[in-house]
């Protein structure tokens, strides 16, 4: 430990200017967050918060790379490799430095932000610590690992840019819904665990044995695995995992789903009845029954595939379609539209096939309500959420570290709508945004009090429906008929 402390002090002296710069940026960011919406433009049209976040990312990355390169691992000319360094001390010194000059200042800044915004401090602590740990694992471990595989800042920047490009490109080409709410946390966790499973052995190999060639091979293999995962993880697979994780509640939930042709809408169909149209719209009315009193069902995804009489299949990726739409006991029907090629439709329209449907949904219940008279100063409403009248008298609500995992709705005057985005089903108490406060516009100017409704997620369910003798012609959207 004494040796680690000794190396740590040397690094502090060596990087004192870079440290001062990072601390100044964190201070400025805290000041901006405390004094207004950090992502709003100022009078000059500049978004100071966004610039500062970018600046922080760049400078902290640079600081960490310089720190690791002070005792660069690859190469055969380094001064330190012929000196009696213990690898554990060296690694501990680097770790301690990053904690001391990146994580702790950030933790303090975020703590100050949360406290000064009036959020309950004790209740926020687990989320804050979790979020801080997640930031270390997600954003700092990769930086340290790439720095440990490179010998200088130029090779580090090149490697980081290539890595960023390759991984971003994979996200761009992968399933578009996989890494968005509400199940993003599952795919992200898989990627994180994979990344750590590669990064930690690399750091171990590098610091203990300086086996750069093996480590670089391992790193490339890890990136390939990550890319495959990004391309393969789908929203549906995440939902299956989500259902499996809450399988006990899923199995006991009485919710049932059926497809009922009698519930087709009288007139429907987005595609006009044009003979030149290449696609035909098929409506699938999903009827949800056995919804217990006081509960409502929110659709997460519907996967549908049609199997023709001779065994051909057409898959319809409806993952994103209708996500967030709700059914209740009073209004139990949700329409889903499929668009199939006219040629396929014409050849199959009157031949009975099999329609397979998997419905992924989340059951919400345990309603809580609170009616408040909004002020210009944010006030705590429910579940650690604050609401207030913001600029232009709009209703704004904000949450700390993560948006609540409950279903949030607001009612006032003639307005009713959701508060914020779809809830994330993540069980973790915090997310990784640099700004710990998530602030959103939720509705127009109220004339009086507003009522907030909160429903807890009770179960994530998957219901599979199979309809035999399904004739496409019976389900053609009315707009296409004739």
């Amino acid at each position: 430990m004494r040796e680690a402390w000794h190396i740590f002090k040397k690094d502090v002296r060596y990087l004192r200017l870079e440290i001062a710069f990072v601390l100044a940026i964190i201070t400025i960011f805290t000041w901006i967050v405390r004094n207004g919406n950090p992502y709003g433009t100022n009078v000059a049209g500049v978004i100071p918060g966004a610039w500062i976040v970018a600046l922080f990312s760049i400078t902290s990355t640079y600081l960490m790379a310089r720190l690791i390169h002070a005792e660069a691992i690859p190469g055969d000319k380094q001064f330190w490799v012929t000196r009696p360094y213990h690898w554990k001390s060296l690694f501990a010194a680097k770790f301690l430095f990053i904690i001391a000059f990146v994580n702790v200042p950030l933790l303090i800044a975020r703590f100050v932000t949360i406290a000064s915004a009036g959020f309950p401090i004790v209740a926020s602590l687990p989320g804050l610590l979790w979020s801080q740990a997640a930031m270390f694992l997600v954003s700092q471990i990769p930086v340290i690992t790439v720095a440990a595989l490179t010998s200088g800042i130029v090779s580090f920047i090149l490697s980081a840019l290539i890595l960023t490009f390759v991984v971003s490109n994979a996200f761009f080409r992968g399933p578009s819904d996989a890494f968005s709410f509400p199940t993003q946390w599952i795919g992200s966790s898989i990627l994180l665990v994979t990344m750590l499973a590669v990064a930690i052995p690399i750091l171990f190999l590098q610091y203990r044995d300086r086996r750069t060639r093996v480590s670089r091979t391992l790193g490339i293999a890890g990136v390939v695995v990550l890319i495959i995962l990004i391309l393969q993880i789908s929203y549906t697979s995440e939902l299956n995992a989500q259902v499996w994780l809450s399988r006990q509640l899923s199995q006991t939930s009485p919710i049932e789903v059926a497809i009922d042709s009698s519930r087709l809408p009288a007139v429907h169909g987005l595609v006009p009845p044009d003979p030149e149209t290449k696609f035909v719209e098929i409506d699938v009315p999903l009827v949800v029954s056995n919804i217990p009193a006081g509960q409502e069902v929110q659709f997460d995804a519907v996967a549908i595939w049609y199997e023709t009489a001779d065994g051909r299949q057409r898959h319809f990726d409806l993952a994103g379609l209708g996500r967030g739409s709700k059914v209740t006991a009073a209004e139990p029907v949700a329409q889903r539209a499929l668009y199939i090629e006219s040629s396929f439709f014409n050849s199959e329209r009157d031949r009975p096939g099999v329609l397979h449907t998997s419905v992924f949904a989340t059951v919400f219940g345990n309603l809580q309500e609170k009616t408040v008279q909004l002020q210009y100063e944010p006030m705590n409403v429910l579940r650690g959420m604050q609401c207030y009248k913001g600029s232009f008298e709009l209703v704004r609500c904000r949450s700390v570290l993560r948006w609540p995992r409950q279903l949030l709705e607001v009612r006032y005057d003639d307005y009713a709508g959701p508060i914020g985005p779809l809830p994330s089903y993540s069980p973790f108490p915090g997310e990784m945004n640099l700004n710990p406060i998530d602030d959103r516009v939720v509705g127009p100017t109220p004339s009086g009090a507003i009522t907030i409704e909160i429903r807890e997620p009770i179960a994530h369910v998957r219901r599979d429906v199979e309809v035999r003798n399904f004739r496409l012609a019976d389900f053609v959207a009315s707009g296409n008929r004739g």
Partner: protein
Amino acid sequence: MSAVIRANQLAKRFGRLEVLKGLDLEVPEGSIFGLIGPNGAGKTTTLKILMNILKPTAGRIEALGVDSLQIGPATLTEIGYVSENQEMPEWMTVEHLLRYLKPFYPAWDDARADELVRQFNLPRDRKLRNLSRGMRMKAALASSLAYHPRLLVMDEPFSGLDPLVREDLIQSLVESADETTILISSHDLAEIESFASHIGYLEDGRLKFSEEMASLTSRFREVEIIVEPPAALPGEREWPKTWLQPQASSALVRFVETHFEPNRTTDEIHRVFGDVQQISVNPMPLRSIFITLAREGGGRARSLAHL
């Protein structure tokens, strides 16, 4: 004398390039061992493998009884390494460098460090990046001698230094020789000759010979013979294998005897040339020996192993 460094069939390959081809080497304890050889012979690679900076492709080398692959902090507290290519922490001042290194070495001697700083005229408060090349080398050496290492490994320490700096470095090396075995690779043969006790000649990845300096300089002689009448050089079969670089000009024959013994060499001359008018035998400086061996190795491609 036991060996402080021992290499056995050491080999190193960089891709298709085979730099070391089964090097065998022993450096006796207490010696100042000069490792010489032409560029690309494998000197620096040998030293880097010894210090566990590079890993051998085959064979092994050990320092202070420890296999190079096992050399860790405990062994490194007893080894100093100074190289012309080493990247020093140039943002440090001389004073900071010495203070920083001190806790790593249980045997660190402040008095010795002070003495070296004074001896080398090192400015304590100047950053390494602002020092001349010679001064940086001095700082590196001071930081490597201050803990009384049992072994000091130096890779081309004199390269590009002015004579005064070289003299300072040599002086301090000689002073440390009582307690430290020194392995030094260098092209500066005049300096090596002035203080090395042993010499190893490395060529094409193999050690051609290794022996005490006194023995080496005593067995290499430049021999000039005046024969009567002028005669052509005898054929290679009759030419003793210990004679190198034969030259004949009129009545003068010149060659390098690599195993000089007065009586034996004279007998050989008479056997080859019969009666001769005059035999002149001149000692050779290390530089001349090196050039002879280097030309012999590159020119006739004749094995020098017998040397």
